[in-house]
């Protein structure tokens, strides 16, 4: 089999993706035709295919129930159309997001989602995982940037949804369905994104606070103003540790300078980095102070009005001697990220269980990511509820013979 696969593209190995623990052959078809051929053969042979981009989001999904081979689109790469004066970009699925960002920036645009510079995510992978970036507060989630896709369905057809223009309501928004479907409905081949004007000036402010609680109070003051920051986030090493409140303003020079002057009084004590220095601070912030890639990560989402209470309960559950080494709270998004010791998977899994039950009455969502040890012990997602039946029906319609590996997404999708 390997020789037949190698004729279609490079074959390596993917570990830590399926429940059995088996290593899967990972094929990187050299082009779209090779991918179509690969999928056709897998269908004919009754094999289950696990689609991946560059695998950077795998640790945030459950281990797949089963698969015979993994397919990556990373070799199917390249920018198809960049229209700076129309503010759009279209690229093949394997194109590194980093490359797209650089291209967009050369045209005077910012590309969202902004993932850390060290992240090797591909466009297709980021769309399939529904990944949002550090710029989410300003530009919203990935699904808001997505104008359209081309995708390979399980029956071997290549289909388009949406388009390349910034405004378009032609046909059903299948691309919205594919975004965040973790490769369970199709293999994405191409995606188009809207672009935003790149900021002329950037100011990155850091204000020290006694602890996360105090930082939350300061952050709420900012949210109550007319400002539309790019970043408003609190970083700390633990519940009772000093916290740093990050605020980033970006846009036209005169506008951000004016915005600085309107900040609440407490910000007079903040350190302010301007332009190049601010961009450096920004990159540092985006890459995370703790090493996000090696940590076990727990994400809690709630509503802004409940974030103080969510944090208070998290802090209480974490307790003394917890495996936490870093926390980031984004109050305006009501998002909280705990980075924990990856070598304590059982304690992390217990914490996740406690958070899920302890925050249920606040309507919070708890997601978890980490290595295979942790993902064997816990579900990466909350229970879906009654709408799961509709999701399953959709999956069965799109992939009636179960060609694409399932089990990675919420609800075992």
């Amino acid at each position, binding site marked *: 089999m390997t020789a037949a696969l190698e004729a279609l593209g490079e074959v390596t190995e993917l570990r830590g993706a399926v429940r059995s623990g088996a290593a899967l052959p990972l094929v990187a078809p050299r082009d779209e035709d090779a991918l179509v051929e690969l999928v056709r053969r897998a269908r004919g042979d009754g094999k289950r295919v696990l689609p991946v981009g560059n695998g950077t989001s795998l640790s945030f999904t459950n281990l797949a129930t089963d698969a015979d081979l993994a397919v990556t689109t990373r070799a199917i790469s390249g920018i198809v159309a960049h229209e700076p004066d129309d503010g759009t970009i279209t690229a093949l699925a394997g194109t590194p997001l980093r490359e797209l960002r650089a291209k967009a920036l050369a045209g005077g645009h910012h590309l969202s989602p902004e993932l850390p510079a060290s992240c090797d995510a591909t466009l297709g992978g980021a769309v399939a995982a529904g990944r949002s970036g550090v710029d989410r507060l300003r530009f919203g989630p990935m699904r808001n940037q997505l104008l359209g896709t081309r995708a390979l369905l399980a029956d071997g057809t290549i289909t388009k*949804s949406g*388009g390349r223009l910034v405004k378009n*309501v032609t046909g059903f928004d299948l691309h919205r369905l594919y975004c965040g479907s973790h490769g369970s409905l199709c293999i994405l081949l191409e995606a188009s994104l809207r672009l935003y*004007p790149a900021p002329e000036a950037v100011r990155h402010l850091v204000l020290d606070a006694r602890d996360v609680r105090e930082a939350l109070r300061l952050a709420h003051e900012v949210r109550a103003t007319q400002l539309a920051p790019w970043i408003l986030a609190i970083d700390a090493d633990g519940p009772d540790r000093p916290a740093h409140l990050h605020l980033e303003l970006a846009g036209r020079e005169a506008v951000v300078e004016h915005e600085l002057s309107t900040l609440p009084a407490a910000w007079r004590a903040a350190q302010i980095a301007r332009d190049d220095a601010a961009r450096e601070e920004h990159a540092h912030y985006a890459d995370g102070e703790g090493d996000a890639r090696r940590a076990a990560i727990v994400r809690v989402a709630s509503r802004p*009005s409940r974030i103080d209470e969510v944090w208070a309960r998290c802090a209480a559950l974490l307790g003394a001697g917890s495996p936490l080494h870093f926390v980031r709270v984004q109050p305006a998004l009501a998002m909280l990220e705990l980075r924990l010791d990856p070598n304590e998977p059982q304690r992390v899994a217990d914490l996740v269980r406690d958070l899920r039950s302890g925050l249920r009455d606040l309507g919070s969502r708890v997601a978890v990511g980490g290595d295979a040890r942790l993902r064997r012990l816990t579900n990466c997602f909350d229970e879906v509820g009654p709408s799961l039946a509709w999701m399953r029906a959709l999956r069965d319609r799109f992939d009636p013979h179960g060609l694409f590996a399932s089990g990675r997404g919420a609800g075992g999708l």
Partner: protein
Amino acid sequence: MHHACAAELRAILGADGLVEDRSRRTAYECDGLAFERRLPDLVLLPRDTPEAAACMRVLRRHGVPVVPRGAGTGLTGGATPVAGGVVIGTARMRRVLELNVTDRFARVESGLVNADLTRACAPHGLFYAPDPSSQRACTIGGNVANNAGGPHCFRYGNTTRHVLGLVVVTHDGEVLDLSEPDLDPLGYDLVGLLVGSEGMFGLVTEVTLRLTPSPQRVETLLAIFPSLDAACDAVSDVIAQRLEPSALEILDKLTIEAVEASVFAAGYPASAEAVLLIEVEGSDVEVEVNANEIEAILAGRGALELRRAQTEAERARLWAARKGAYGAMGRVAPDLYVTDVVVPRTKLRDLVHRTTEICRERGLKIANVFHAGDGNLHPNISYDRRDADELARVLDAGTRIMEVCIAAGGTLSGEHGIGLEKQQQMRLYFSPEDLAAMELPRHVFDPEGRMNPGKTLPIRACMETRTKPLDEVTR
């Protein structure tokens, strides 16, 4: 309609929840696409989700087609009951169920009129961003079904960006509750798929919507141009310069004349060949910086005059005139065919030019009033539907406009949806495989083909409910 079915529905809704009388039912035989009509067998007006669900269960048992309807302001025949059956109107479901100021969202019933939502949240310094020109009449449910846009969607995006959750009554009467305003969907993004599904995936009864903080300051600029071409070029320049106004709207000469002769008159100069209505918002500094740069571009493109609205009343008048433009066109001819296509913003001038030519070649009167910032053209053709020959020319021009725009990299609709009007033209934009993929969710949400049948997806052979494509209606 079978007596037993009507009786069951009456038992659920009470006599005033049913429109049975033939003359009253005629109000539901079409939407804004006036030349395609069919009388519904019955109209149902549930008061809430449980009533709607109970009705849907009865209708399923009797195998009756269902057409959801908001205010009927749609322009593509989306709410027209072409296959007969029942229209379910949301006119009695207009409550704001929850207004959460801190978390900036509202939960509303789907029959709420768009403008009433902004009215409800304005005292709290918030507004609902999508603002179709029909916002004083159209409903949130209709906006969701069509993924409606509006002038300010240039900055804020169409409806889909603002929908956080939905309650949908499915074809079999199940209540699918997706109303929680979660940050990300858990599992598949059903809400994203349902928005824009044109009433074919279920009846939306409640909607959770994101509210936006009202800007500190808003400035409305009016630029008067000696030609439509120059106005289009100015818009392309503003986009290419990466400037960020919140709205960029063009009105051409015929539109200005109609508006100025109507109750919406706002002082648009009748001598202008085109005007560009621009809105800039933000802090004082942001408004000034943006407005000054935009004004420089407008002047560079030969604007004859630049004005800034001096008072809130003047600003409101300029917008009322823009939003009343379709109504004002009633002076030109009894009927108006509003086309809706999107083109790359780099090609605005050429395509506006070309669409105008297409109408002139067919001896038709065309007026342009459109969301220029998004490249969303609305060539509006005035006609008299009683004149069969003129109607045929109108439809021919509509098709040609779509063909030309698609050939230039454009698309069929930016906000009005497909409905009946563009059903066949879907084949210009999508391949048979693309369309087959769209059938997949349709079969899941409507396995019996009873939800708004005969819309959006092109009719295949004689399997479906509509008997004739639109352009044959007039023959």
